[in-house]
C-alpha cells in the first residue's frame, strides 16, 4: 500500500464518518417505517382473505365504478391543467405585464391551502345555499354531488403542478430561442410547436405525471363536494374510506392496492422519463452516435 493511502487524513468538510453513518441510518429507518412498511401492509392485507375475496372486491360494481370515476376525473382534469400550466408558464416567463408576481403567488395557492378548505369553499359557491346555487338550480345544472364537482375540485388541487415544473425551466431558457425562430421567419404557433415545446417536453411530462398522480389520489376536496354516493359519486380514495368504515378491511386494502399500483406505475413512468431525458443528454454528448 502506498504511503499516501496509509497516511491518516483528516475527513473532508462534511465527511465525518459518524455523522455520515448516523444520517444515512436515520433516513433508512424513517423510509422503512414511514414509506415501505405501509406499502407492504397494503399488499399483505389485500390478500389476507385470499385471492377470491380480492377479485370479488375489485370486480364489485361499486369498485369498478369508483375506478372509472377516478380515471374520468384524471382524463378531464389533467389535460385541462396541462393546458393551463403551459399558458400560465408562457405568460409568466415570456411576457411582462402588471400583476405578474401576484399571478405567480395565486398559482401556488392550491399547494398551500388544505384541499378540504377548497372543498368547503366550492360548497359555498356552487351549493344550493351558495352564491350561484339558486341560478344553477334554476337551470337544472348539478355541479356539487355530481361528476362536475369532482372534476372541478380535482382541478383546483392540481392546478399548479405543470406550471410549477415549467416556469423555472422556461425562465432559464429566456427568449433567445423564440426570437431566433421568429427572425428566421417562423410563425408564433410554429415557434411554439417546434422550438419551445421540444425544449420543455421532459419537464412538461413530469408535471403531467405528478398532476395525474395527485388527481387520482385526491381525497379531501373531492370528499366534500362529491357527497360520497356509492356507485355514483365515489372516487377510488373515497371508496376505500367507505369500505374501511364498513369494517371491510380486506376490501378496503384491495381497493387501496389498486390506487397504490396506479401510484407505482406513475413512479415507474417518472423514472423512465427521467432516464429518457438524461439519456438524451448522454446521447448528444457522444459524438459517435448517429442521431438524425
Amino acid at each position: 500500500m502506498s504511503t499516501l493511502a496509509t497516511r491518516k487524513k483528516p475527513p473532508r468538510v462534511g465527511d465525518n464518518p459518524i455523522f455520515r453513518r448516523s444520517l444515512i441510518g436515520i433516513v433508512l429507518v424513517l423510509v422503512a417505517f414511514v414509506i415501505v412498511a405501509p406499502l407492504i401492509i397494503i399488499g399483505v392485507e389485500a390478500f389476507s382473505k385470499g385471492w377470491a375475496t380480492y377479485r370479488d372486491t375489485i370486480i364489485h360494481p361499486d369498485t369498478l365504478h369508483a375506478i372509472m370515476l377516478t380515471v374520468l376525473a384524471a382524463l378531464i382534469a389533467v389535460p385541462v391543467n396541462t393546458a393551463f400550466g403551459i399558458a400560465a408558464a408562457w405568460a409568466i416567463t415570456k411576457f411582462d405585464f402588471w400583476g405578474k408576481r401576484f399571478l405567480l403567488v395565486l398559482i401556488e395557492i392550491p399547494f398551500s391551502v388544505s384541499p378540504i378548505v377548497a372543498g368547503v369553499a366550492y360548497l359555498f359557491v356552487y351549493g344550493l345555499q351558495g352564491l350561484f346555487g339558486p341560478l344553477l338550480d334554476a337551470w337544472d345544472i348539478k355541479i356539487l354531488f355530481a361528476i362536475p364537482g369532482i372534476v372541478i375540485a380535482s382541478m383546483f388541487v392540481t392546478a399548479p403542478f405543470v406550471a410549477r415544473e415549467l416556469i423555472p425551466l422556461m425562465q432559464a431558457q429566456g427568449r433567445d430561442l423564440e426570437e431566433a425562430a421568429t427572425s428566421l421567419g417562423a410563425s408564433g404557433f410554429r415557434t411554439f410547436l417546434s422550438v419551445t415545446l421540444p425544449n420543455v417536453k421532459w419537464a412538461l411530462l413530469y408535471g403531467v405525471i405528478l398532476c395525474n398522480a395527485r388527481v387520482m389520489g385526491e381525497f379531501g376536496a373531492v370528499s366534500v363536494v362529491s357527497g360520497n354516493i356509492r356507485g355514483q359519486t365515489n372516487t377510488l380514495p373515497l371508496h376505500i374510506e367507505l369500505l374501511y368504515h364498513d369494517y371491510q378491511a380486506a376490501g378496503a386494502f384491495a381497493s387501496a392496492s389498486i390506487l397504490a399500483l396506479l401510484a407505482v406505475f406513475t413512479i415507474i413512468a417518472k423514472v423512465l422519463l427521467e432516464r429518457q431525458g438524461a439519456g438524451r443528454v448522454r446521447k448528444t454528448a457522444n459524438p459517435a452516435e448517429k442521431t438524425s
Partner: protein
Amino acid sequence: MKIRLENVVKTFETFRAVKDVSLDIDSGELVALLGPSGSGKTTILRMVAGLEYSDGGTIHFGDQDATDIPVRDRGVGFVFQHYALFPHMTVADNIAFGMKVSKVKRDKAAIDARVTDLLRLVRLEGLGDRFPAQISGGQRQRVALARALAVDPKVLLLDEPFGALDANVRRDLRRWLREIHSELGITTLFVTHDQEEALDLADRVVILKDGQIVQQGTPEEVCRDPQSAFVMKFLGDANVIAAEVRDGRAYAGDVSVEAQGVADGRAELYARPSDLDWSHAGPGIAATISRVLDRADGRRVLATTVASETLEFDVEPERIVKAGEAGFVTLRRAKVFPV
C-alpha cells in the same frame, strides 16, 4: 441593401437607451457599433432587426420604410450573442429551419443541397449530424451564421458575435467572417464592446456613448483622429497628463505639443503607451519608474511623475530599465483635449 436610421429613439421604462440616432449604412458595407455596456448599441441592432420597436424616428431598408415591419417579415439574418441554436435539432436541422418555415416553399432536395452548401461555406462539412452540445463554441458560432444566411437575408446582424469565445478563436473567426463578407457582399452590422474586434473587422466603426453616436469613420479615421477624450480612451490604453494651453501649444513639464483649436487654459494630454518613451536626459517629464511589466512583445513601464501622475509606456525588449530608476518620459505625439 442600404440601411438608413433617422432620429431613432428608444426608451425602456424611464431609461433612454437610444437618443436620436441617425446612421447611414451603404449597401455591402460592414459596420461595427462599438461602445461600452449601456451605450445602446445592442438596442439599435435589435431595432434594425425588428426585435424591438423604436419609440420615434424611422428605419429604412433601401427605399422601404421598415420601422414597423415585424422581425418575421423583415428579412434580416440575426446572430445572437449566445448563438441561440435550437438544442434539440442537429446542426443541419438548425440551418434548414428557416427554409422549412419559410412562406417560400422549397422541396427537401433543394433544402438539403443548400444546407450542404452552407456547411461548406462555414467549413463544417460532415458535422451536419451533430447536436449543438457536441461541437465547440467557435463551431456553434459558425452554425449560427450559416442558419442566419440560409434565408437569404437582405441584412446580416450580429450581436457580440465573438463575445463568448477565447482570444485565438476570436481572431481566426474575425478574419474568416471578413472573408465571408467579401465573398457574399451582404450588408452587415455588428455590435461589439471590443475595440480591437471593431477595428479589425469593420469598414466603418460607429462609436456610441449613452445612446448617442460620438464619432464614426473608418478604423483609420477614428484611430488617427479621435474627436473626444472618450473616444481616445475607449479605443485603447491612454495616458492622461495635465497640461496648460497657451497660444495653440499645450505645455506639460518641459515638453509641449501642438494644440491648434484648443482654448487657452487647463487641458489634458492624451498619449498612447507607444507615444511615450524613456530617456535619462531631458527634456521630458521628470519621473521615477515604479514597476516594469514584462510582456511577450516588449516591456511595459509604469512610472510616477513629480506631479504623482502614473504613466504607462512600452520600451523594446532589450532595453534595461529597473524600478526605482529616475529619468524623463519623452513624448512622441499626443492629443490635447480641454478639461
